[in-house]
């Protein structure tokens, strides 16, 4: 794996982590103990989108 690819991997993981932490922070700032169902749904949609992108990439080979 090239350096650029390893960094891309680290960036992808960190980006996802940041999105999660940002959602936690927003919830705490608003005085909530946990994320709303709607907020959870956004993560579910992102996961679906990533899985579809991965499948498209696999099928293109």
């Amino acid at each position, binding site marked *: 794996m090239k350096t650029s690819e390893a960094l891309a991997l680290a960036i*992808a993981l960190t980006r996802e982590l940041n999105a999660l932490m940002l*959602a936690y922070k927003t919830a705490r700032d608003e005085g909530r103990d946990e*994320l709303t169902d709607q907020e959870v749904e956004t993560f579910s949609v992102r996961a679906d989108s990533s899985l579809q992108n991965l499948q498209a990439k696999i099928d293109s080979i």
Partner: protein
Amino acid sequence: MLEIIKKLDSGTVRGLIVATIPLLVLIASFFGVDEALFQAKLEGWGEKIVALVSLLGVAWAAYARVFKPTPPLTEKAAQATQTMAQEQERRRQGGYIRAGMLALILALTAILAALPGCAQLGLQTSGTFNDRLAGGYSAVTAVAEGAGVLLDARVRAAQAEPDPDRRSAMLAAAKADAQNLKDQAQQAKDALDIARSLRGVNFEAAEERLVSTLRVLEALQRYLEENP
């Protein structure tokens, strides 16, 4: 651009230089240089012209080898040239990451993910159901993104392989591994969806499903970290 080698390191140039020596001796003999040693002298103009043409031919071959493009003449040479060009291209792209550095990057990412709170944001994550559910979906996304990056890397490595059979095998293996990762991530995503739908009906069952799915996702992430 292909790397150049020192001109005198070229076997062609060395051979041509060696071939030139007798010609130089013969030409020197035209002017009576060291006749006693070589006992050879070209008398007629025709022979002299032939010798000069030979010398010019050798000189031109050397010039062409040094300054002109040198396409390979055989399949073997073509393959060797292609392999050399690909190797140089890989080096020019900045090289491949060392296993230690990759492990460090991934370990730092994993440590960040494993922290009970995010230091730069200064908050504490709770263990509430929805928070962990969102974390699970986030892990699915991370696994899918990571698998995509790894797939790209493996496809690129396969395309650099000169042997067609080996290239096909590498592509097939990369594709199968990515498909396996995707299928497992998809199953984890489906399990999270089930846990989410169970929450209002049977919280204990939902909690159990969530915990077991998060373990699967941790294992998938470990696989990605350990198999770059």
